[in-house]
């Protein structure tokens, strides 16, 4: 599985031709098929291309929702 640097992850912001990826707990997820990540934004507050490990602690949902999303790195 591909290893992402922070710079490579930051590129994957869902803009232009870059698919939206997010990081959580050391893994990188491809959220491009998720309705909730349209245009690389998630419910106004979160952006693709970021490590959301801390942010998920504050979210109104748990990490179990990521189980539906492919892990790509």
């Amino acid at each position, binding site marked *: 599985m591909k290893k992402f640097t922070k710079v490579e992850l930051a590129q994957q912001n869902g803009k232009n031709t870059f698919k939206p990826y997010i990081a959580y707990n050391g893994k990188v997820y491809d959220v491009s098929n998720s*309705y*909730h990540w349209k245009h690389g934004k998630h*419910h*106004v*507050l979160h952006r693709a291309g970021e490590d959301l490990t801390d942010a998920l602690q*504050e979210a*109104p*949902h748990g990490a179990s929702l990521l189980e539906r999303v492919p892990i790509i790195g």
Partner: protein
Amino acid sequence: MAKVAKEMVEKAGVNVDQLLELLIKNASAELTTFYYYTILRVNLIGLDGEGIKEIAEVARIEDRNHFEALIPRIYELGGKLPESMNAFHDISACPPASLPKDPTNIKAMLTVLVKAERCAVRGYTQICNMTAGKDHRTYDLSLAILNEEVEHESWFSEFLGEGPSGHFMRRGDTSPFVSKFLR
């Protein structure tokens, strides 16, 4: 726009632009859900469907009420609805509650309904968390809506066999929590 009201919210540390975007996206979710629930409701037929039709109708009407209740707050804070209905639909905070391929499959119908309600519960929890102790009016409104969305979720969840809702059907008017914002 309610200038001082907006100023108070900003002073309390709320990012009003972000809050407005969330309120507009959730208003869209309410109106689009009202529309999609209309299609679901008319397809809830037969022995199984009829059993769910009434609560689907209550949820449908209450979602429309939520849309109506959100609009004044959006404009008070200096926001506005998109001019295009298409654009408004496409920014919904929740995915379309589309009719399943087989509308006679009651489990599939209930799954659509419960997913929509769960999306709403998460959305209003987010707004409550953002505004608690800071923007009292938006918090009060979001909490009222959240109370009704939680009840909708529990009704459909009960029919899906996930356990008792602990609720009885509405007695009397719809929107027992949100009605104060509709007067």
